[in-house]
């Protein structure tokens, strides 16, 4: 038997703070796929808030801590297309003026993946053994879709979940309006964009909304809840791992 690949989980700051359930779901999916999972202690955030606010120096400093924390693992996996994209696509560009760091960044980028695409593309997982009774629609988060090509992988695995029907919404590839600090700095515009999105979610007839990024999920869940909509909002990893927890924004969180 070949040795299990050593996989480091990059938890992401939003999963860490808002929804540990997603982290544990990721660990379960990775272990089921035959990985030895570790969670490096010295991790915080990928640095996107600084990077996208024009604070390149802070982004570089944070990237250096990530590069150090995740050295030596076979793979680094994040339950987020946005954070994985930051490491995979943007870290190498971040150090254009620092050759040594750029090399390290590229080396890390080469073995970093978004969770679901890692399971399907690298670990060759074809199905999961989970059950979820409901009709779900899937939102393609921007970075995962356009930077990492995450599109068919979650749908392939969701198709193997017993009891689950997937119904596509209109414009599933259009941004939900989150955009990190954009959602607060330009709240009115962000709200208009997520209003379009929740309209499409409602029109799909699904009772559950799934996506692979906490930021988008918080935004869409927040908009649905304000409108009194009962659509359940979950990270796709929770459903694939079959873990039970109150959906985002439902009472029972924090207890």
């Amino acid at each position, binding site marked *: 038997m070949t040795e299990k690949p050593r996989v480091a989980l990059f*938890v992401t700051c939003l999963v*860490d*703070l*808002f*929804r*540990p*359930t997603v982290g*544990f779901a990721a660990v379960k999916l990775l272990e089921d796929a035959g990985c030895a999972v570790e*969670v490096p*202690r*010295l991790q*915080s*955030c990928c640095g996107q*808030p600084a990077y*996208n*606010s*024009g*604070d*390149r120096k*802070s982004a570089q400093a*944070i990237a250096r*801590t990530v590069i150090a924390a995740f050295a030596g693992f076979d793979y680094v996996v994040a339950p987020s297309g946005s954070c994985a994209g930051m490491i995979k696509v943007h870290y190498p*560009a971040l150090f254009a003026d620092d050759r040594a760091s750029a090399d390290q960044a590229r080396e890390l980028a080469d073995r970093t993946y978004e969770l679901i695409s890692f399971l399907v593309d690298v670990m060759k997982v074809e199905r999961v053994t989970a059950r979820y009774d409901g009709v779900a629609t899937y939102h393609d988060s*921007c*970075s995962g879709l*356009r*930077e990492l090509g995450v599109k068919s992988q979650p749908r392939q695995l969701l198709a193997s979940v017993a009891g689950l029907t997937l119904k596509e919404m209109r414009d599933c590839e*259009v*941004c939900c*309006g*989150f*955009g*990190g*600090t*954009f*959602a*607060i*700095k*330009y*709240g*009115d*515009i*962000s*709200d208009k*964009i*997520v209003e*379009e999105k929740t309209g499409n979610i409602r029109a799909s007839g699904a009772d559950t909304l799934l996506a692979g990024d906490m930021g988008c999920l918080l*935004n869409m*869940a*927040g*908009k649905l*809840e*304000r409108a009194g909509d009962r659509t359940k*909002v979950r990270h796709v990893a929770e459903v694939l791992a079959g873990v039970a*927890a109150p959906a985002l*924004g439902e*009472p029972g*969180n*924090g*207890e």
Partner: protein
Amino acid sequence: MKPTSRAFKANARHALGDPNLQRAMVNLRTGFAERRAHAVAQLPEWEELREQAVAIKKDTLAHLDFYLEAFERNVIANDGQVHWCRDAAEANETVLAICRRLGAKTVTKGKSMIGEEMGVNDYLEANGITPVETDLGEYIIQIRHEPPSHIIAPAVHLVKEQIAQSFRETHRDLDATRPLNDSRQMCDEARAVLRPRFLAADVGITGANFLVAETGSSIIVTNEGNGDLTQTLPKAHIVLASLEKVVPTLEDAATILRLLARSATGQEFSSYTTVSTGPRRRDDADGPGEYHVVLLDNGRSALLGGEFEDMLRCIRCAACLNHCPVYRAIGGQSYGWVYPGPMGSVLTPSLIGIEQAGNLPNASTFCGQCESVCPMKIPLPKMMRHWRECEFQRHLPPPAYRLGLAVWGFFARRPALYRRIADVGARVLGYVGGGRGRFRALPVATGWTRTRDMPSPEGRSFMSLWAERQAQRKSR
């Protein structure tokens, strides 16, 4: 044009509350985005074509001086003239001087974004010359005294009832009881009104989609044929073009034309593609007596060799506008200057300064749709981020925002400390918000909670729970 980009947020709020605009913007998706997707899907060589077009423009920009001088030589060889203008003021003076020399009273105009950049209509009017826009969309916004809201569909923010009303208010000599319910009727009316203006015009001004160095030609694409009447009937044809419009050969222009209409409107080709080379020749049946190219720099040459050079590849197809969720939400006038949407968010700060236009590159979710549909593969999000970096270095973002970012950054780069703070945060927020499962209001995120709830954290950080679980595993 006087920028209002500083008031971007207020402009956007106004647009969000404008029911007509919101109704009109729905058409963007079906009218442009879906047609583009269809046209692109029909063309197996799409990606190769993009690569070719990018290579053409890269080569052109690397030797811009050479191609522009070749262009000028060939314009002169065809009895035309090129006027090199550093800025809008020089360009306006040049246009006015030609009009004055010819004793022009009215000027017809084809659509030109360079004309908008120059503010040429206002300038001519202030000097006693009447400009008449002949592109239907431009005509509509001219009679409404509005700036364009889109670079190829200037009146896309209006619904037809608004246009009918403007026609009734402007065309007062027509029967007040005439029906004006559909676009056909309005189109016919505009046509009838514009016909005598075409014939009366002394000078015709058009823009240019391409300047061809090898032939000294300018090329425009239109769907209404108004450009042809504008440029062939009067005594002189003035072409307004910025210097990055040049391509080496006709073949190069043809390659990029295959991308242009598909990206813009989903057409394979625009209804009219008009190549103009010099004034009327002795045996020509018609054509203008003079041919002038007003070649405008207006800050573009300063972009060469820098972070924003790629922006000079832009062919103004507007695909980035049509696919931008922010543009679709607020329309083009909110951006406060000539160029809206993602391409405007990069170009506008380059041309009018980041102090004026700082909001524009910030008002993006970085969703990346613009870059993925851009036929010229311009890395728009990357360049918007670069503008944010320029802003940050110059301490332009508000102090509260900078402070928040600095505090967050302090902890984020100290993971051991961060871990403890995150667990405390998760516990406190989870305790306060967990009962309901969400927050109706959060003081630091009012931009969010004014219109959306904030789901509550589960109550512990993942890192602390994981550490506990590992400890239990070991003790077993």
